[in-house]
Every structure is written in structure tokens, then in C-alpha cells.
């Protein structure tokens, strides 16, 4: 009955080479994140000042930074941290946002209005500013970056889930589910949520990219991650001083990893929609 999910995925990937490239690329990055310890050529933390500020060479493919550390190793090590932050933050906001938004969209009434007001207030902040304020209030620690990123993502998921449920709420099949005995919770969780998941899954991938950008941005300005922890944002910040002198590799290496990762997440997001929507199955 479930006509092979796997063959369907392969068929979609074949039709969308770009998505395939993105998927493969993300797998490679994930491997880098998981196995970074084994892949890195040098230790990312230990300084080697005599070798400082060397441009790319055969010994150091991406050059060394101001403390002589190998830029490539640090970039690879940073992959794990950035992925972790993004994944935790998005997972948190997705789960909470989807459930809250669906219930509000389905029930309407005072709950919907109250949550709507709250979301409005939340969105009244330019979200980056809010993240700054949250980190300021809660302390300059890594966990707070995750929470701040999750929090600024939350209104988006709530609104999205609410809108999707609203559209489907009066569809014949939802009424039919009610006629067959489904109560409110069952209707929302068993029937509506699975139907809005494809649309939200696309957002997941896109939000992961956005979360990485936000996390990197926050560390760029000095919040959350502290030296000498390798993280893409903080590496760009450290390298920023030197770029006007022409030492470009400190910025370009972590910067390009950052851009490429986000790009892959965005491309994958578009491809996911094709795979998960059963309407594409023929």
C-alpha cells in the first residue's frame, strides 16, 4: 500500500539534480561535523604563534590565523558546533510552534486571539534585537544562544501552523473525521498536523539555514561563543580586523562554509516539499 517511499525519493532526486547535490552536500557536512576529530589535519585550539598569518599553502590549505592555528581545521571543527546550535534551536521552536499554532488555528476564539496578540508583540521586535536582549538578560552563554534562536523562530511556526490549519479546518475530510468520532485533540494531532507537515517541513530546512545565520551573527558580535572555541561567526569576527590589510583567508574560509551550508539547506527545503507531498506521487 505504501508504494515504495524509497523509490519515490530516488525518482524525485533524479528529477531535481540540484536537490540531490544539496542533499549530498549536507551529508558531507554532517560527516565533517560528526567525525571532525578524525578529519582535521591540525589541532584547532592550540596556538602556534611563529606560524601566524600565513596565506594558503600546501601545509595549510586555508592558511593560518593570527595565533598560528590552522584555519581549515578550525573551520571543520566549527561545523559541529554550528549544526548543533541550529538543530536544537529549530527542533525546539518547531515542536512548540506546530502544536500551539495548530490548536489555535483549529479552535479559534479567545485562545487564538490571546496567542495572536502574543505573537504580534514578539514580532514587534526586529528579531535579532530580541536575541540580543535575551542573551543580555540571561547571560552570555551558549545555551542561551540556542534558546534565543529558538524563541525568535517560534512566532513564525505558530503563525504558519495556524494559517495552514485555518485553511483546512472546514474541509470536507476534517468534518468527516469529526463525524466519525474524533474529538478536538484527535482531529488536530492525528489528522491536521500530518497534513500540514509537508509544508512545515519545507520551512524546517529553510529555518535551519536561517538559524545558522542567526547563530553566526550573534557570535560575530561577541555573544554566546567565546574564544578560543571555533565557530564560523567568531572566526569571521577575528578575521575582520585583517581583511583591510589584504589577509583574506581568515574571513573567506569560514565565510564560504557558512554560505554553502545555508545554501544547501535552502535548496534542500525546496526539494523536500516535492518528496513529502503525496500529490507528487504518480
Amino acid at each position: 500500500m505504501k508504494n515504495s517511499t524509497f523509490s519515490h525519493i530516488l525518482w524525485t532526486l533524479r528529477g531535481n539534480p540540484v536537490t540531490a547535490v544539496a542533499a549530498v552536500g549536507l551529508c558531507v557536512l554532517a560527516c565533517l561535523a560528526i567525525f571532525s576529530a578524525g578529519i582535521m589535519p591540525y589541532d584547532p585550539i592550540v596556538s602556534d604563534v611563529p606560524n601566524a598569518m600565513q596565506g594558503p599553502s600546501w601545509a595549510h590549505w586555508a592558511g593560518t590565523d593570527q595565533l598560528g592555528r590552522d584555519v581549515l581545521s578550525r573551520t571543520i571543527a566549527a561545523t559541529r558546533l554550528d549544526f548543533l546550535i541550529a538543530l536544537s534551536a529549530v527542533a525546539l521552536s518547531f515542536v512548540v510552534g506546530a502544536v500551539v499554532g495548530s490548536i489555535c488555528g483549529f479552535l479559534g476564539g479567545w485562545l487564538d486571539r490571546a496567542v495572536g496578540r502574543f505573537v504580534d508583540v514578539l514580532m514587534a521586535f526586529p528579531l535579532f534585537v530580541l536575541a540580543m536582549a535575551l542573551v543580555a538578560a540571561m547571560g552570555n552563554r551558549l545555551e542561551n544562544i540556542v534558546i534565543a534562536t529558538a524563541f525568535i523562530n517560534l512566532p513564525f511556526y505558530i503563525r504558519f501552523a495556524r494559517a495552514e490549519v485555518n485553511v483546512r479546518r472546514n474541509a470536507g475530510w476534517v468534518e468527516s473525521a469529526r463525524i466519525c468520532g474524533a474529538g478536538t485533540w484527535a482531529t488536530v494531532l492525528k489528522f491536521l498536523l500530518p497534513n500540514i507537515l509537508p509544508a512545515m517541513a519545507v520551512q524546517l530546512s529553510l529555518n535551519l539555514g536561517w538559524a545558522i545565520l542567526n547563530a553566526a551573527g550573534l557570535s560575530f558580535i561577541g555573544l554566546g561563543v567565546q574564544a578560543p572555541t571555533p565557530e564560523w561567526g567568531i572566526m569571521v569576527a577575528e578575521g575582520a580586523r585583517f581583511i583591510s590589510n589584504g589577509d583574506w583567508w581568515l574571513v573567506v574560509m569560514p565565510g564560504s562554509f557558512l554560505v554553502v551550508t545555508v545554501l544547501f539547506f535552502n535548496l534542500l527545503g525546496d526539494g523536500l516539499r516535492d518528496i513529502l507531498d503525496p500529490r507528487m506521487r504518480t
Partner: protein
Amino acid sequence: MTQPLLNVENLHVQFKTRSGLVDAVRNVSFSVQQGKTLGIVGESGSGKSVSVYAVTHLLEAAGRIVGGRISYAGQDITRATWKTLRTVHGAAISMVFQNARAALNPIRSVGDQLCDVLRAYDRRLDKPTAHKKALDLLKAVLIREPEKRLDAYPHELSGGMCQRVMMALAIASEPALLIADEPTTGLDVTTQKSVMDLLHRIVRERGMSMILITHDLGLTSEYCDDVVVMECGLVVEKANPVQLFTDPQHPYTRKLVSASPTPTSRVQDLVDGENLLTLVEPRTPSVMPAGSAPILEVQNAVKRFDGGILAVRGVSFKIGHGESVGLVGESGSGKSTLSRLICRLADLSEGEIIFDGEGIGGTSARDFHKNALRRDIQLVFQDPHDSLNPRFTSFDSIAHPLRELDGLSGTALKARVAECAALCGLDASLLGRFPHQLSGGQKARVGIARAIACRPRLLVLDEPTAALDVSVQAIVLQLLEKLRREQGLSFLFVSHDLNVVRMMCDRTIVMRNGEIVEMGESRSVFSNPSSEYTRSLLEAILQVPQAERASGQEVRP
């Protein structure tokens, strides 16, 4: 023979799709004479709209004319450039589209849009003259208070008024040929009649020719001089309406003629050459014997929405065991709201609903699913396209109420699902498919199988065939009637189509503005209505030429 105004020969149109090139229409030929009206009839996928859009070069980007010849007033316009089309288009051929409100620019006033067209036709027109001409056009289409309408926006007008504005736009450039693409879709029966009468009158008065594209055979008999029938991109028959109805040649035309409900058709005759009902005897008498308890009684039902709007104002009626009762009304009559109240999907503001002696109005809609009577009242939905969960296979959809309300599982479940599918003529191979892999008719069958799965005693049908093609509707209606007789169901059949209700229902209730205007046996309501409103509804239904007419007999029932 005079030269036809428009002549289409062997038209072949292809569309570029993901799976390659697809033929939309092949070898299509038809012509329109000066001052005459041609009807093009077909169901969905017949290619009737595509053929005409090809003529006016309004095909979508993916469509291409790959063969044939189109000539207008002797001039070949098949490969016309935009400059030539300009003289042909606005000035000579105009179109009126369905769903008029969407076809008008929402952020531009009616007056501005009219002036745009007038100026496109005559560049030298100055503002005051254009304004006056626009006003004249609105008067010509019999819009009330035309001065006010000039400044109005489409969203401020009703569906019928938007259609009239469309017509005004179409005749602004004084065309010789008017093409109307399903102009009455989505309009109430009485509005349909006034719109079509107006169209007819304008065309006659100005000596224009018209092409009327429709799926409704009845319309063609009233307004067209010639008819072309299309199926799957091919022309299958050409004749004048009387000939078409009294002596159809092609099997498809015969099927279409049988399937079109008329004031005198019967359910058993709907499907040409086939009758599902021959071997089925009614289980219980279809007319309620006096004195027996009704299965459903509605007492003074009132439904008030937020803002004080009264959708249903004190409605009372009964449905007997095994009886089929029809509920008709135009939009805003409250019939859909009433059907939702009876299914307990919405709560009553006042009044009571008694099912088989038990009051069910007291339990709230939210909690009704726990009530034992939930399985006895089921609903067949209007739009097959959104009544099935897109993530459920047909099997899942039919099994769903069985799991939830009857608690079935395993082999018992599978057996019952197979049984229901067979009863509804649904092939077993379709059980594993998703809704987007099924046709409209198949989806309707799944919806019906789902509704009867738990053996309900009352089935509420909310316009169950409104979104289906006529031939598919015929089959579904026969199926419904067969099920009703076999299973001893009672029906509440909600519809705006009077002919269908007359065929399917023993008794009919006519609603208007939330109140019952007339109620009684279908035979008497339809042949001798007591209320003015019912009379106006009946007059709006078109008469179709019958075989009896050829022999001179009285047609009106």
C-alpha cells in the same frame, strides 16, 4: 450558402506538459453563421474551452496550435500577429468569462475598466465622452443605478452584477461575434436565467453572432441555433438542438441526453442503456404511512451567527423511515446550515432535533461524537475534491468510521470495507489509491462508501453531485437511489438543482432566507406550486425538447 463569420477547420492544439506533448483537441471543425448562436457542449476535458481560446489566441503559454485553419470573415487568423489580432479582437470578437468577479480587475473601478476598453477601441475618445459611453453601456446591460456602479469596485457587486459588467465590457467594442464561456457557473438559478436572457437579447438586438460554451444541454436548447458536442478533444456530433434531443446519433450524445435531468426524467432512465435499479425492490414503502413515527423531527430550529445574523429562522419538518426528502433553495436560503445542524456539526441556537424519538439537539456538536447515535446520521459531502483526506488511501477513508465508531479491526474491517466498496461499484484495485489518483466520480463513490460504512439510518446529502459532470452525476444518482432502496435509508437531499430533487425525493421542502416557503409531495410541489417563489424557481428551469414534443404532446408535467 453565405460565408460563415467564423470558420474553424481541423483544429489541432497541443499542450506541453511534464510528461511530454499532449493533444488537447484534434480535428475540430465548426462554424458560426452571421447572426446565429452556436452552442459548444461537453463535459470536463472535452476541449470545448481550449478550441475557443485557440480561436481568440488566449491559450496558456504551454498551448500551441499545431494544425488546422481558423478564418474570420474570410481572413485567415490562425497565425495572426498581435497587430492583426487587434483588429480582430476587441473590435470584432469579444469574450465573456465564467466567474465574473475574478475576471475583473479588483483594484480598478468599473468605470475605469469600461473606459480602458472604450479607449483601446477608439484612441481619440476624450474623458467626458468615454464616461458617457460607459454609462450607456451599463444601461444597456440593465444594471440598476448605473451612475453609482461606475465608481464601484468588483468586490462591492454581486455575482450577477459582475456578470453584467463583463457583458458591458464585451460589447463596448461593438463586436460582431461574442463568445460566452460558461457564463452562468456559480450563479443562482434565477440569476442564471436573467443573465442568459440578457445575453440573448443583446445579441439579437445588435445582430451579433454568439458562441455559447457550456456543459448544460438544457441551456443550448433554449438559446442556440446549432449545437456541437465534444468529447475528449473531438467533435462527436453537430445538429440543431431539437434534433439533438429527439434523435441523438452518437453514443456519447445519447449518454449526455439521457443523463441531463429534466422536469420529467426518472432516475432509472438517467443512464443510457443501463439501469442499476431494475432488480431492486424498495425495502420499505417510500411514502410514509400516516401515523407512523418519523425518523427525524426538527422542531422550530433557529441558528444565529455572531453578529445577529439569522441563518435559520424557526424551521420545522419531519422525515419518515425510508423516505427521501429534498431541501431546495438558492444561496443564502439556509439549507446548508440546516443540514449541518441536523448532522450535529453545528449547534442550534433554539429549537430541538429529535432522532428516532431521542432528542439530539441538547448534546453539543463538539461532544456529539461520543453519542451512540453518531453512526446513525452520516453526511455525503459536496465537493469530492476536498472531502477526502489527501493522506488517506481509499481504504483508509472508508475504514476510518469503521475503526472509530464501530471499533472494527483486522479481517472484519477488511471485509466490511470490501463490502461497502462493492456496493458502491468501486473496483477493489482502487482501494489502494490516493485521492489525487482518482477521478471525480471515483472520489464520489469513496465518499458514499464511507458514509454508509457504519449502516446509518439517515443520510444527509449536501449537494452530492453538484461538482460532477452530468454523465457521472447520472451514475451516482442511480447508485444513491439503489442504496436507499436496498439499505432502507432515509435521505435528506440538499440541492439547488430542482430537476434532480424532483427525481430523487418523495417530498420536497423549499427554503428561502432561512424559512420554509413550501413543503409537500414532490409531485404536487413541482406541478402545482402554491408559493410565488417556488413558481419563479420553476420558471427559471429550462425546458428541454422531448420526444413527446415531436408528436405534439403537452410537455409541462
